[in-house]
């Protein structure tokens, strides 16, 4: 970012917003916050599209995210935003992930471990805003809504499957499919047996034919 760079404010807004959200959330997970303070080496995350590099490291106050950094970088990750986000799910395997890594793998593993152990007490966070009565009530309602949504999703899937197989007859049921696969398997075995039998007969016929020729000579 040298003279005349036009994205300084944009990147600074981005880094300050991400930093504020993470650090606000970390207030409700003191253990992770304490662990974060040990990750003082710089992790650089370079997104290829849009072309942005963010630098982050842990501090006593949480995480610090920068758009400009002159300090030495311990680990640099480079890839598309989706590929970089997928690293959160697959802990250490970078093969075919679309992410290039330069530097220490250990630092990346420490960050991944920290992110996976993150246990934010959302009820406490909500209670700080809504109070000790409305906060837990809101969280209970929220958890109930999540559970209801999950159940509804499973029920809708079951009904849709039933409608497609039983009412529309658009797709076969599981039992019909199993019978079909079983019949295909039986047929395949019968064909194999027939083929083996034919080969055996052919070989026997060939041998008898050769014996007859030798006798006549």
């Amino acid at each position, binding site marked *: 970012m040298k003279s005349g760079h036009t994205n300084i404010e944009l990147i600074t807004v981005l880094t300050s917003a991400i930093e504020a959200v993470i650090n606000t959330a970390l207030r409700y997970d003191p253990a992770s916050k304490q662990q974060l303070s040990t990750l003082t080496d710089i992790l650089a995350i370079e997104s290829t599209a849009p072309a942005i590099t963010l630098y982050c490291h842990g501090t006593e106050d949480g995480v610090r995210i*920068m*758009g*400009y*950094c002159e*300090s030495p970088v311990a680990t640099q990750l480079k890839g598309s935003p989706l590929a970089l986000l997928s690293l959160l799910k697959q802990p250490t395997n970078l093969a075919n992930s679309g992410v290039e890594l330069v530097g220490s793998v250990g630092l990346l593993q420490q960050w991944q471990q920290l992110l996976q152990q993150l246990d934010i007490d959302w009820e406490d966070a909500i209670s700080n805003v809504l109070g000790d009565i409305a906060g837990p009530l809101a969280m209970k309602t929220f958890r109930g809504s999540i559970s209801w949504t999950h159940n509804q999703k499973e029920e809708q899937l079951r009904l849709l499957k039933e409608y497609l197989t039983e009412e529309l007859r658009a797709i076969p049921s599981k039992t019909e499919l199993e019978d079909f696969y079983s019949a295909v398997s039986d047929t395949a075995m019968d064909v194999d047996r027939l083929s083996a039998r034919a080969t055996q007969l052919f070989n026997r016929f060939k041998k008898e034919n050769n014996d007859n020729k030798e006798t006549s000579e």
Partner: protein
Amino acid sequence: MIDETPAKTENPTHATQKTHFGFEEVAVEDKAERVAGVFHSVAGKYDLMNDLMSGGIHRLWKRFTIEVSAVRPGHKVLDIAGGTGDLAYKFSKLVGDKGQVILSDINSSMLNVGRDRLIDRGVNSNVQYAQLDAQYLPFADNTFDCITIAFGLRNVTDKDLALRSMLRVLKPGGRLLVLEFSKPQNSMLEKVYDQYSFRLLPLMGKLITNDADSYRYLAESIRMHPDQDTLKDMMNSAGFANTEFYNMTGGVVALHKGIKP
């Protein structure tokens, strides 16, 4: 008001020295007093006016300045014209217990506001306060790892003298960061900016602090301040190396960086 420190003498090359106070020509010995009057007047509502006038963007300019400073634990930092202590607060977190930050301003009202703010925010172990003139820094040679002056250099009467003074107290390899209003890089933006500065700014000053003149001075002093390339040349002439600048908000503000060789 995003603006800070005044000083004493403007390029004292002649016996009958005159200098500018905004667009007005004043005697050199009067300028410091006139500028001090501006800041005594606005100190109480300084933060509020900063947010209103810049739409909060001054926080982004300062945040970027902190990033470019590359300040690390154990560093010694001098924040000249530190005003209400925005930069000093961040530096105090970065340098840690082994480091030291000196928040300084020539104006006692501004320094008092800054000191109160930092104490209220629980900062007291590694920050010291000093009322000083940027042209005559009362520190030993090679003392600081980093010096910042945010929205203060244009109020310094002899800018070259101040830059040389800063170079002297920096350690070799230390860096000076000058955050200051500058020249917009787009003519359309410049016209809009002029209208804003000379019409809206004094009106806001009148409404909020009942002091239109101070905010008129702010707009005028910005126009009298050297543009990006001139300030870069001044830093080079003072003896800084690897000088460069970063334009922000289309050149409305520029951050100049120079390293002591």
